[in-house]
């Protein structure tokens, strides 16, 4: 029986009305039900783990929050940490909305970083006003190319994109390692897997304020806005979302489904590739470093960006504050470790818990939404 409807049975009429009123009151909050549930659940799981390690959860969380947001420097560090998450997250929004699961963020970040690095090496002396945009665009092209391959394989050969993007990650890890041991390694006797200090003209300019905050934060916000316009304010985005919602109906309506799938992964990869360029040229070393494994360079952003995007309800704009939150967890994690001796890896585990709770509570959200008289707007598998 549809809720909110008057019941024929007078016995039931009164609670039904009350429920309807309650539903109306709660309707605006349904949208945040999922992230709120997930966040609370993750915090509780984290508190249980902290207790098990003999640490006081309140102290640990206080240190985490202070470390993340407690001062201008901490806020800047959090923002720097959040940039790749936001950029990858926007890419994830585009892919997931097209019902394409992009697990290849790590590889796309790396290819973007490689393309941007090679570009800066080739154009060492180009003035900064030109070289910075050039390396960002190169990053987008590199990542976009790495995303387009599994996109086309899915669209035209029916290859499961989850598997192909994971394999593309592995190829990218080895490619990075190869290049940094061979073609791109810093000349000299020291055999560390890193490039020379890249052109100063490609350094992402610091923003005023005396912190580590650089122009990458503006790039991330710009990409989020562009991602929003692409997805929700353009014919292309309409087509992508339509394909994500129902590929058969879209095909029937004359939309180019295969092209859309390829484009979605290419755009998604491009966003990740920009993250790669930002990681290189916004770093303090201004080098591409592969020492310590590829994950040390990507900071696992290819996966954590998925967490941010899901937490931001797969909306490019909301992904930005979500990334800031998760960036804060990552920066605050080390402060927590210092104060409580609980390793910062706790944060990675909690990110996993957040993902599970977000996708686990979507059903709850859809039920709430039906109950509150809205319609489910969630397309696709996400």
């Amino acid at each position: 029986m549809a809720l909110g409807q008057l019941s024929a049975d007078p016995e039931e009429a009164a609670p039904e009305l009350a429920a309807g009123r309650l539903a109306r009151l709660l309707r605006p909050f349904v949208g945040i039900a999922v992230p709120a549930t997930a966040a609370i659940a993750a915090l509780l799981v984290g508190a249980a783990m902290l207790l098990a390690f003999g640490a006081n959860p309140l102290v640990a969380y206080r240190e985490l929050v202070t470390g993340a947001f407690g001062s201008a420097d901490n806020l800047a560090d959090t923002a720097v940490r959040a940039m790749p998450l936001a950029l990858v997250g926007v890419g994830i929004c585009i892919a997931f909305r097209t019902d394409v699961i992009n697990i290849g963020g790590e590889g796309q970040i790396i290819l973007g970083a490689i393309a941007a690095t090679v570009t800066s090496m080739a154009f060492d002396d180009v003035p900064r006003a030109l070289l910075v945009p050039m390396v960002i665009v190169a990053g987008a092209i590199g990542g976009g190319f790495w995303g387009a391959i599994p996109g086309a394989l899915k669209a035209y050969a029916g290859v499961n994109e989850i598997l192909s993007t994971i394999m593309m990650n592995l190829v990218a890890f080895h490619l990075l390692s190869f290049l940094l041991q061979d073609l791109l390694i810093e000349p000299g006797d020291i055999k560390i897997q890193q490039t020379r200090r890249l052109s100063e003209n490609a350094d992402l300019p610091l923003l005023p304020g005396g912190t580590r905050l650089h122009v990458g934060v503006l790039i991330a916000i710009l990409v989020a806005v562009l991602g929003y316009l692409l997805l929700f304010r353009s014919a292309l985005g309409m087509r992508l979302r339509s394909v994500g919602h129902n590929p058969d109906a879209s095909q029937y309506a004359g939309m180019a489904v295969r092209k859309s799938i390829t484009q979605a992964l290419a755009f998604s990869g491009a966003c990740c590739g920009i993250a790669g360029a930002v990681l290189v040229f916004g770093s303090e070393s201004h080098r591409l470093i592969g020492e310590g494994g590829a994950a040390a360079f990507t900071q696992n952003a290819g996966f954590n960006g998925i967490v941010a995007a899901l937490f931001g309800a797969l909306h490019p704009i909301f992904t930005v504050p979500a990334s800031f939150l998760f960036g804060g967890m990552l920066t605050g994690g080390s402060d927590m470790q210092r104060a409580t001796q609980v390793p910062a890896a706790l944060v990675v585990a909690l990110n996993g818990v957040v993902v599970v709770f977000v996708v686990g509570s979507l059903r709850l959200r859809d039920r709430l939404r039906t109950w509150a008289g809205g319609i489910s707007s969630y397309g696709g598998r996400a």
Partner: protein
Amino acid sequence: MSDFFTVSVLVATLASGIRLATPFLLSALGETIGQRAGVLNLGVEGVMLIGAYAAYITALRTGSVVAGVLAAMGAGALMGIVYAFITVVMHATQGISGIGIFLFGLGFTDLLFRHQVGTPVPIDGLRGLDMGGLSDLPVVGELFFQHSVLTYVAFALVPVVWFAMNRTTFGLNVRAVGETPEAADTLGVRVNVVRTQAIIIGNVMAGLAGGTLALDVGIFQQNLTSGQGFIAVALVYFGAWRSSGVMAGALLFGVVSSTVLQLKTLGIIVGANSTIAAMAPAILTIVVLVLVSRRIGAPSALTVPFERDN
């Protein structure tokens, strides 16, 4: 290159390929059972890490490899219950919740390792069996009769899984709920119960695969599995959801890995070139996926949650 083509080197390479194939085979066989029931578990990597850590810490504390193996399987079973709850009860999207399991396993094992152990302490790991005369046979002995007991378990599971899937009621039910859950339900098969069982079995095997890995190398470190769990999921597609195909894929990956290692040890491929060679398995997987994708269909209800319409 001629150094490589000697009998002793080739035999050693193949033998270590069989050893390296073991974790792939165990986890991919488990994943096959889950996928046959219609559930994709992309979190194999995370479950393997948890199994690996459980085996490592148990073996370290008790000094018993057997206890380590049991702990790995127990940890896998626990993760199976969690994953069944997430996907079967809560209907969470399977591909993405698997990533959640992966991140959880990655972070959680790193957390426990740093907290409980800190600096890596090696353990007495798995030993090859000594089968007397058989193990001493030239060529054949080294190839087939000097492995650890878990390698034999893994390969013995290939026909067992085939038999269970194709010749038992349980297997019939698993395939039914993976292909047409509605029809299975009509016939009285409890779809979600069968799926939960398949998930738990698959996760126990993934945990065991991780345990095998840790006990084989005798050490634990952050991200010990380094992508092997993801490759295991791909191997299920590679093997077209058949245990023999999965075994072929696992052996291929094992032998390619051992060949790369061997060529590196012999100095035939030096320095950075070995990283190029290391790409081979991933590229091979993509090529195979292209070849098999159009020919063989996945279970029809793969990734589709089941709920009775009332």
